């Protein structure tokens, strides 16, 4: 029996090779960008959680829309 590949944090890449997994890593990235952007932009920090949540959703929707459009384009070109 082959032992599973050990993951040593920082020395080896995280073992996520499946195409079904890695796109989910875009969510924390979008949230982080939204948080910092709105922390800079908003006049008071009270507004930040709500504003950042809103813009994070828009970023993710935009990326999903871009992915869908590109997928449709690729499928169209393949025919």
């Amino acid at each position: 029996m082959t032992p599973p590949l050990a993951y040593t944090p920082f020395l080896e890449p995280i073992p996520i090779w499946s195409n079904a997994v890695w796109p989910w890593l875009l969510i924390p990235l979008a949230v982080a960008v939204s948080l910092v952007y709105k922390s800079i932009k908003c006049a008071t920090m009270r507004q930040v959680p709500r504003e950042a949540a809103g813009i994070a959703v828009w970023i993710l929707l935009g990326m999903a829309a871009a992915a869908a459009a590109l997928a449709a384009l690729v499928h169209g070109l393949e025919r």
Partner: protein
Amino acid sequence: MKTAEPATHPWKDDRIPEPLPPLPERLQYLALMSDAPSRTFPSALVALVAWLLPGGGYALLGQWARALTVGITIIVLFVAGLLIGGVRVIEVPGWGDHGQKLVVDAQGQVTEEHPGEEEDRPWVLTAAPLTEVRNKPWYIAQFLAGPINIAASAASIWASRDRPTGGAIAARSHARTNELGVLYTAVAGMLNLLAIIDSAHRAGPHAAECK
């Protein structure tokens, strides 16, 4: 015949101005929620502190909520990039794939220095710095994350070195994991650049215009 006199209170004298009503008790806000700079510092100092510690520029201005939000987010994003792609997502200019200095040989070729070599060949970062940095452009963005990137660079050089038994201490990541690791660390640096510019601007004389 009696004339109508204006109805006045017997104790009220119009010649004496009424005392102003007492001021309402002012609310005291904690500095944590303050948005206006409570201290003044030169913009250059604020920018330097913001690079040294992400969010530090806002902390210097007394804007603790903003400092903690920005600082923690940037550091977590950078560390997450290293966890996703491994420390070797930081490609340090001037050092090669085996953790040795890159030097320019007599033919003008860039090669990696071998340990124990005594031949005096110029280091690529002194001989052709722009070409070398252009070969590793993501490092510019990663560098903006501050000293955390310098520590990661040192770790990357160490992890690139060959073990006595053969092979590098840590392998370079490939494909999506490498791309995401580079993206996370570079975006952390770019977000810190935004924070550096914003905190320096808030420290400056035009701070009121950023509303």
